[in-house]
């Protein structure tokens, strides 16, 4: 399985360890992993701010970079959702062959639906509160949205059940938005921080030591609040837990 590793801009700059864990994890489950150099950004921040058209050049660049991989896999649900849903609008002339949008996966989704490992040999003896990010839940189906009459399922929970020693909990209001939202966090920063505070508080109410999820951007926003307020909880990306050695 030839996998092209997609590392979104802010993970590249702020969370390279999430990139490394993604790489190692994919290798451990038997994928042939390559990272096409010099990736920048998928264009989501511009698009959510109302400038989707400005992301066209970035989309073309992404499409070229990943042209030769069967699977494109990245550790960020919202970026992957943007590529999947936005690129068909941005790359209308490329429709005759399978564009990157048809081959891209969020890494947890990829492990859960495609690789389906029976074991991971990972161990993480901590209580962890699941962060069900909006795009992961409502546009990718990583878990059932609480608004809908759909039997509860959670791909993140399924994956974490392969980790030894872990205690997985979910906060009250399990999929309420943490308030990141890209440009929203800047333009509406008062509400954004109020949302983030409330979210972190609910994660803390579970007694968890860590908040984990498949969207590093939500984690970054919440970590910003945790750091500023010196709260006794930390954020950690799903791949870092799944990749922890036993």
């Amino acid at each position: 399985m030839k996998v092209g590793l997609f590392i979104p801009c802010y993970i590249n700059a702020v969370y390279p360890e999430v990139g490394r864990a993604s790489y190692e994890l994919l290798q451990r489950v038997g994928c042939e992993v390559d990272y096409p150099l010099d990736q920048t950004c998928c264009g989501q921040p511009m698009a959510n701010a109302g400038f989707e058209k400005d992301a066209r050049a970035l989309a073309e660049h992404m499409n070229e970079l990943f042209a030769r991989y069967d699977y494109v896999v990245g550790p960020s649900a919202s970026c992957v959702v943007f590529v999947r849903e936005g690129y068909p609008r941005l790359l209308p002339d490329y429709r005759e062959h399978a564009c990157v949008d048809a081959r891209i996966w969020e890494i947890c989704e990829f492990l859960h639906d495609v690789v389906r490992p029976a074991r991971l040999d990972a161990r993480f003896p901590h209580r962890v509160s699941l962060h069900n990010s909006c795009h992961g839940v409502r546009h990718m189906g990583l878990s059932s949205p609480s608004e809908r009459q759909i039997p509860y399922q959670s791909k993140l929970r399924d994956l974490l059940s392969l980790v030894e020693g872990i205690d997985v909990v979910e906060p009250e209001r399990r999929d309420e938005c943490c308030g990141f939202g890209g440009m929203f966090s800047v333009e509406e920063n008062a509400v954004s921080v109020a949302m983030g505070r409330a979210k972190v508080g609910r994660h803390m109410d579970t007694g968890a030591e860590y908040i984990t999820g498949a969207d590093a951007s939500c984690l970054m926003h919440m970590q910003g609040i945790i750091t500023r307020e010196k709260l006794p909880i930390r954020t950690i990306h799903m791949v870092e837990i799944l990749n922890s050695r036993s």
Partner: protein
Amino acid sequence: MSTHSKAAKRFVADAERLAWHDQALYAVREKRDRMMATVPEWEDLRRMASEIKLHTLSRLGDYLCEFERNATANGMQVHWAADAAEMNETVWELIRRHGGRRLIKSKSMLAEECGMTPYLEARGVETVESDLGERIMQLLHMPPSHIVLPAIAVRREEVGALFEREMGTEPGNSDPTYLTHAARRALRPKFLEADVSMTGVNFAVASTGALAVCTNEGNADMGTSFANLHIAIMGIEKVIPDMEALGVFTRLLARSGTGQPVTTYTSLYRRPAPGCEIHVILVDNGRSEWLADEAHRNMLKCLRCGACMNTCPVYRRSGGYSYSYFIPGPLGINLGMLRSPKRYHGNVSACSLCYSCSNVCPAMIDLGEQIYEWRQRLDRLGLADPMKKAAVKGMDFVMGGRRRFYGGIALGRLAEKLPRAVLENGLNPWSAPGRAMPPFAPRSFNAWWKKEMKK
């Protein structure tokens, strides 16, 4: 900064009110969830509601004419109004011909939309709101801050003080039951004195020419039982094909809106009682134009249940008055833009694109997706925020070249060496009181890969 963002900042500053407003509305969302859980076919109902509405909208003219024919045959009188001015004139003309002076009305968003109450007051018609929440807002001289729970932002102590002033209730008594009884007593003479009653319309059934009016207080029924002129006003999107369709909507409306199995009163008006008149005004006021807008015609499926407001994390934490359109929340952001992008684009920032609204909506309206679409239109309409546009262009420039991007990270690392006071100020938009900047890693993933993997 958008108008919403500025106003929201003030709302957020009152931490106690913020927590209380958020919790009060989320509790309604949870009640709704519990109700949904009792209906296994919930998702099918939503799909049916959506399809019935889309079907009706696709032949709106036919259904409206069918409704007019049947309502007329039942003895009601049907009027058509192209816009707010025509609606107000029609209402005034009916009241004047009737010699009316006192209007008792139940809740109607359309009346708000058309500025009807001030229009009638200016012509000497006393207009009394009979819905308790609306009455509180009327006495406070404030607009409603929620379409279903108009007084949700008013604390009961404030209601107690208001009633003490207006109705002479016991000082300091803010017990809800006590205040409700006091309001009821004060309203009773208003019902008796009224010579005209007005209601909105939740659904107009084309096949039978009947009007469905849903309330929890029975105030619409009370009003229409005394006065012998009943004026019902409705947007043209309120028509539905038949009684089966009504069954689908009544199962969804109250469950979604307030978490009740059904509204306490669901009254069907079919023909006027002897000696009485019912006039129905069908109001367009922009709707047929919205119908032509493919990206946004879905808004016309709305049942006005309010669920999208209750679930919206931004609305709950910024309150109805932070929005410049009279309807707030995801619904109001979209309706405001349909009304006038120029006047109401200051609300489109009020969305983190969490899409909870799209999933909660009983008519399956893609509210979040439509807000995203409006953002894309702002630039074309010449309404994009120049600061934001510059920020995006800058971002685009940096991301557009690998040297610029990776060089930018290096610069960022350097910038972090600056004292916190320089970094975390108003000019750095990421920094906000309460959130620290994420530090750049000493080495990007790209650099790591180059060094470690390409050896």
